C-alpha cells in the first residue's frame, strides 16, 4: 500500500567499485515508484570500519539511518537493534537461498534480508596464460608455480611492475576471508566450528598459512599486506598481475572501457589445497536491515523489499555481476550472456563456507581481528605459522572464557 | 576643591606591611609631592588615595567624608600615570571623552565643551583626532593630563608622570604642570616623583617617605635648609650632605660641634643643646669653599677631582669616617689630585643632629 506521505529515507552502504552509482540508479526508480526519496550515506571501503560505525550509530539510537546494508557476518552482532523482518518478508523468504536466509536469522528473528551474495573468484589473465602455455591452476601450488614463472618472464621482458598474484593481505575483515579460504581449502577447518569449539590450531591450517607466507615478496608484492579489495583490483586492472583473488564485482569493472585488462581475463573457482584439499570460497554477501530507531520503518521495509526484489537483483547481476540470492536468476539467459561469471557461480555459492559469526555471536569481530592479525603477522614473517596459530588459540580461548 | 586627610593609614600586602600609620592633612588647592627612595611606598600611598588599593587600616577622608570603601569614581579623583595609560585604540578626543561618557550626569554639549577647554589649556587641540601612537611622549603625557582635567576632579593625582620623558621634555612638561597648578588653583594635587628637581620646583609642601613612614613634611626650602633628621638631610640635595660624627657642646647661646681631630665649629644661629652629647655635624658640599690662605675648617688630601665645567667636585680625605668629604666649588678650580687643601664651611649652613639622627634646630 502506498503511504499517504512520501518519506525521506537514508540508506548506509559501503562503496566498493560501482556500488554507489548503481544504488543511485535503483533508488531513483524506487522514488519514481513509491514517492519516497532516499539518501545514500557512504561508508568507508573497509568493512571493518563500516561495522564500527554501524555499531556506534545503533548504540547512539541514531534515527537518521533507516536502512543498513549489512555484511553477511554481522547479523548476530547487530541483531538487537534491527527490526525483525520475518513477518514483512514472509511471502518473499521462499525465493531466496535458504543458507543465506539462515545466516541472517538470529534466535528466530530475521534481522536482515539478502541483497546479493558473494563468493570470490580467481581472476586470471588469459592472454598471459596463453602466451606461456599454462593451464588455469587447480591448486595453490600450481598457482604459485605459474605465477612465479610468468612474473619472472614478464619482468625480464621489461615489465618490471608485473606481479604474479594479488589478494587481500591488509589486516581487516577481508583477510579473514582470504585466510579462511586458504585454511579451509587445506582442510584446516573454519577457525571456530559450529559448536563454538576452537579448531584453528592444526597442522593443515599451519601448512596453508606457511604456503601463503611464501607468496609475499615473491609472487605477490610486499605491499599486498596493506591491500584491500580495491588496492588489489588497482594492480590487477592496470595490467600488473597475472592472478587475483577478488569478488565478482571486479569482473565487469575489469571489462570496463578504461581497463587495461579488458577482454584479457577470465575467472575460475579458487584453487584447492594440497593433499586432497578442495576449493573453498568464503561466503560473502550483503543484506539489508531496518534500524529499530528508524522513524519510517514501513517505508524502510518497502525499500528493502524493492532492493531485494528479483528485478533489482537481476539488474545488479547485469550491471555489476553481483550474485543474486534468488536461485532462479542463475538460469536467466540474459544474465548468462552479459555476465557469464554469475551463471557459473551458482555451484561456488552452494559450497561457500560461512565465517564463524554465528558460533561466536557478539564476539565474532574480535575473533576475526585475532585471526586476521595472526594471518597478517604470519604473512609478514613474524613467527612461524604453527607458533602463531598456537598463540591464536590461546587468545581465542581467553576471549571465549566459558562460552561465546 | 577638596581637602584630603589621612589618619593612621596602613597598608599591608599579605603579611608584608608597607605603610605604617600615615598621618597627613592636605589642604584644599595644595600641591603636595611625595618623595622617597624606591620602594618606600609612595605609589602605594597614592593608590590608596585613588582607591586603586584597599586600605588595610586607618581612615582616609576627602572633603571631610570617609571614603575608605568608596570606589575611585566615587572619590572624585583623577590620576595621571607614569606610562600615560592612554587607551591606545581611541583617539585623543575619545580618550578624554571616555570617562565622561560613562558618567551619565554629563551631557553631550557639556562633554564637548570640557574637552575643548582642556585641549585648549594643554595645547593639544590639533591632535584631537590622532591616536596616541601618533604622538610624542610629551604630547601623550599632556593628553593623559587632559583626560584627567576633563573630569573636573577634586583631587588630582600624578604618579611619576615625567619619568618616561627625555631630559629636555621633562623640563618643559614640568614647567607646564606648574602652570596648570596655577590655573587650577583650587584643585588639590598630589604628585609622586623620585626626581628632586621636580619635587623642589613644583611642591607647595613635600612629604618625604621612608620605609612606609613619613620622615618630614614641609616646604621645599624648609626641607633643604632645615631637614628634620639625617635621612631627610641626606636625601635632599645632590651630592648628598656630608655627615660627620661629632661631639656637640653648648657654646653660650649657640652650639659648637667638635669633630674628632678638628677644631670645634660654632654655629651661626643659636641652638639649645645639652652638654657633651654625641651627634653629627652636617654640611652640604655647596656650603664648603676653598680657603685661599691654607687655613680652614677641614684640611686634607684631594682623592678625586671631578670637573663638571660649571662646578668642580672635590673629594677630600680629612681622616674622619669612611667616606671622603665632598665639596662643590663653582667654576673650574686649579686643584689636582693629591693636593693638600683646606675647606671652610659657611657657619649659617651647618646642621646638627643628635645621636638618634634628629636635627637640633635653631632655638
Amino acid at each position: 500500500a502506498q503511504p499517504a506521505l512520501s518519506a525521506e529515507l537514508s540508506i548506509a552502504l559501503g562503496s566498493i567499485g560501482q556500488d554507489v552509482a548503481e544504488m543511485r540508479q535503483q533508488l531513483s526508480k524506487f522514488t519514481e515508484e513509491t514517492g519516497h526519496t532516499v539518501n545514500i550515506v557512504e561508508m568507508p571501503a573497509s568493512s571493518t570500519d563500516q561495522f564500527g560505525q554501524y555499531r556506534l550509530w545503533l548504540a547512539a539510537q541514531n534515527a537518521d539511518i533507516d536502512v543498513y546494508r549489512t555484511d553477511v557476518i554481522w547479523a548476530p552482532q547487530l541483531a538487537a537493534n534491527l527490526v525483525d523482518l520475518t513477518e514483512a518478508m514472509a511471502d518473499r523468504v521462499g525465493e531466496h537461498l535458504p543458507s543465506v536466509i539462515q545466516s541472517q536469522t538470529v534466535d528466530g528473528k530475521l534481522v536482515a534480508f539478502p541483497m546479493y551474495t558473494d563468493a570470490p573468484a580467481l581472476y586470471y589473465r588469459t592472454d598471459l596464460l596463453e602466451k606461456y602455455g599454462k593451464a588455469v591452476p587447480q591448486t595453490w601450488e600450481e598457482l604459485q608455480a605459474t605465477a612465479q614463472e610468468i612474473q619472472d618472464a614478464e619482468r625480464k621482458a621489461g615489465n618490471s611492475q608485473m606481479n604474479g598474484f594479488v589478494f587481500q593481505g591488509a589486516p581487516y575483515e577481508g583477510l579473514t576471508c582470504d585466510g579462511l579460504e586458504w585454511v579451509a581449502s587445506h582442510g584446516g577447518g573454519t577457525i571456530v566450528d559450529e559448536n563454538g569449539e576452537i579448531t584453528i590450531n592444526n597442522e593443515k591450517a599451519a601448512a596453508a598459512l606457511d604456503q601463503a607466507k611464501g607468496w609475499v615478496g615473491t609472487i605477490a608484492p610486499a605491499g599486498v599486506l596493506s591491500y584491500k579489495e580495491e588496492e588489489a583490483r588497482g594492480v590487477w586492472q592496470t595490467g600488473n598481475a597475472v592472478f587475483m583473488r577478488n569478488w565478482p564485482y571486479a569482473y565487469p569493472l575489469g571489462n570496463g572501457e578504461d581497463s587495461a585488462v579488458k577482454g584479457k581475463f577470465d575467472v575460475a573457482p579458487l584453487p584447492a589445497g594440497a593433499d586432497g584439499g578442495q576449493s573453498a570460497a568464503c561466503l560473502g554477501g550483503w543484506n539489508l536491515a531496518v534500524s529499530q530507531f528508524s522513524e519510517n520503518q514501513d517505508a524502510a521495509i518497502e525499500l528493502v523489499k524493492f532492493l531485494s526484489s528479483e528485478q533489482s537483483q537481476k539488474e545488479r547481476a547485469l550491471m555489476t555481476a553481483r550474485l543474486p540470492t534468488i536461485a532462479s536468476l542463475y538460469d536467466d539467459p540474459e544474465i548468462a550472456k552479459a555476465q557469464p561469471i554469475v551463471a557459473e557461480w551458482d555451484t561456488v555459492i552452494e559450497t561457500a563456507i560461512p565465517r564463524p559469526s554465528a558460533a561466536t555471536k557478539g564476539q565474532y569481530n574480535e575473533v576475526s581481528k585475532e585471526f586476521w592479525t595472526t594471518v597478517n603477522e604470519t604473512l609478514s614473517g613474524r613467527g612461524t605459522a604453527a607458533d602463531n596459530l598456537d598463540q591464536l588459540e590461546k587468545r581465542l580461548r581467553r576471549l571465549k572464557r566459558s562460552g561465546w | 576643591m577638596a581637602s584630603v586627610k589621612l589618619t593612621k593609614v596602613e597598608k599591608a600586602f599579605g603579611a608584608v606591611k608597607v605603610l605604617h600609620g600615615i598621618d597627613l592633612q592636605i589642604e584644599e588647592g595644595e600641591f603636595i609631592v611625595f618623595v622617597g627612595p624606591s620602594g618606600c611606598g609612595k605609589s602605594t600611598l597614592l593608590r590608596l588615595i585613588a582607591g586603586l588599593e584597599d586600605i588595610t587600616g586607618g581612615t582616609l577622608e576627602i572633603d571631610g567624608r570617609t571614603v575608605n570603601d568608596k570606589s575611585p569614581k566615587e572619590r572624585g579623583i583623577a590620576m595621571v600615570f607614569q606610562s600615560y595609560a592612554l587607551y591606545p585604540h581611541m583617539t585623543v578626543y575619545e580618550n578624554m571623552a571616555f570617562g565622561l561618557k560613562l558618567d551619565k550626569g554629563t551631557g553631550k554639549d557639556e562633554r564637548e565643551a570640557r574637552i575643548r577647554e582642556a585641549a585648549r589649556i594643554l595645547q593639544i587641540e590639533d591632535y584631537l583626532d590622532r591616536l596616541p601612537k601618533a604622538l610624542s611622549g610629551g604630547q601623550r603625557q599632556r593628553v593623559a593630563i587632559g583626560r584627567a582635567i576633563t573630569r573636573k576632579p577634586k583631587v588630582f593625582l600624578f604618579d611619576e608622570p615625567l619619568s618616561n620623558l627625555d631630559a629636555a621634555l621633562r623640563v618643559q612638561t614640568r614647567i607646564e604642570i606648574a602652570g596648570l597648578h596655577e590655573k587650577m588653583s583650587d584643585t588639590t594635587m598630589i604628585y609622586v616623583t623620585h626626581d628632586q628637581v621636580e619635587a623642589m620646583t613644583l611642591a607647595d609642601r613635600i612629604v618625604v617617605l621612608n620605609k612606609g613612614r613619613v620622615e618630614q613634611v614641609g616646604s621645599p626650602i624648609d626641607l633643604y635648609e632645615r631637614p628634620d633628621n639625617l635621612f631627610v638631610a641626606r636625601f635632599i640635595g645632590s651630592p648628598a650632605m656630608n655627615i660627620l660624627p661629632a661631639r656637640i657642646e653648648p657654646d653660650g647661646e649657640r652650639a659648637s660641634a667638635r669633630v674628632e681631630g678638628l677644631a670645634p665649629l660654632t654655629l651661626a644661629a643659636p641652638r639649645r643643646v645639652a652638654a657633651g652629647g654625641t651627634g653629627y655635624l652636617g654640611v652640604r658640599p655647596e656650603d664648603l669653599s676653598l680657603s685661599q690662605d691654607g687655613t680652614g675648617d677641614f684640611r686634607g688630601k684631594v682623592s678625586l677631582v671631578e670637573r663638571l665645567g660649571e662646578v668642580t667636585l672635590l673629594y677630600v680625605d680629612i681622616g674622619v669616617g669612611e667616606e671622603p668629604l665632598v665639596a662643590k666649588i663653582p667654576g673650574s678650580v686649579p686643584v689636582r689630585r693629591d693636593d693638600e687643601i683646606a675647606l671652610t664651611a659657611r657657619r649659617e649652613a651647618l646642621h646638627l643632629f643628635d645621636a638618634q639622627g634628629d636635627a637640633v634646630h635653631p632655638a
Partner: protein
Amino acid sequence: MSNLSMGAPPTEKAIEAQERPATRSNLSRERLRSAWLFLTPMILVLALVAGWPLIQTIYYSFTDASLTDIDGAEWIGIRNYWEYVDYGDGEGEYFGLFFDDQWWNAVWNTVYYTVISVSIETVLGLVFALVLNAEFRGRSIVRAAVLIPWAIPTIVSAKMWAWMMNDQFGILNDMLMTVGLISSPVAWTANPETAMWAVIMVDVWKTTPFMALLILAGLQMVPGDVYEAAKIDGIHPVKVFWKVTLPLIRPAILVAVIFRALDALRIFDLIYVLTPNNTDTKTMSVFAQENLFQFDKFAYGSAASTFLFLVIAMITLLYIKIARLDLGGRGR
C-alpha cells in the same frame, strides 16, 4: 599592543599571599563579583564537556557497560582492570587490562612512537630553529614554508603520505630507488619493520615545524649581547652553541618536548588513517577506540581510556612542576 612574541608560558612561580584587607572597598567587591560572573559560564561548559564525561568514562571502566546496552551498565568493580577467572578445574587465568598483552603492546607502541618521534622532532626542530634564527636572504619565505606542514590537517597529511608511500605508485619508493638506497619497492605502511617508521615519518614531517617555532621563540629570547660578549671573548661558535645557547634554551626545549610528548601519547587519527588495524602501530588511543566502538567492550575501552588519562595527567603534573608555571597571574 605589548610584546606579542614572548615565549612559552610564563615561568617563575609567584605564589600570591591572599589579600585580606580589613576594609574591602566597593571596587574590590565589584571586581570579585565580576570575576565569578565572568568565570561561571566557562567553568560550566568545561565541567559539562570535560569534567562530567571524564567521570562517566571512569565510571564505565568499573562496569560491564556494552555499547548496545549502555544504560544497563552494572558495577563490577575492578574486573576490567584485574580479574582472576577460575575455570573450576583447578586452572584459572588472570584477565583485565593489566594482563592483556595486547594492551601492553599498545602501551609499548605508544611509548616507542612518542620517544622516537619526539626525539627526532627535537633535534630536527633545533636545527630548523637555528637556521631560521640566522639572518639570511629569503628567511621569511622559509619561515612561511615551514608552517605549511603544520597547517595541513592530520588526516590530509596521512592521506598525502599514504599516497607517497604507496608501494606500487608511490613517489617515495621511486625516489629511493632512483637514488639507489633500496632495490625493490618497500611497502612502507604494511611492512612490520617500517610501519611504525612510516607513522613516525609523517608525524615528524607534520610537527617538526611546531617544535622549531617553540625553540625559535626560546632562541630569540636569548639576549643577543651574550653572543657578542662571546665573540669578544673569541669563543668558537661550536663551543658557544654547546656552552651558551643550549643551556639557555633548555627551558624552551623542555616545554616544547613535554607538550609534544603529551600530544604524541594520545595520537589517534594519523594511525587510524595511515595504518589501520595494524598491531605494529596500534597505540593506546587506538586500542581504546577499538574496544569502545568496534568490539563489544565499551567498559574495557573505558578502562583503557582511564589508564591513558592517568598517564597523561601524571606527565602534565610533572610538567607543571618542572616548568614552574606562573599560575598566580599578575593582576591586582
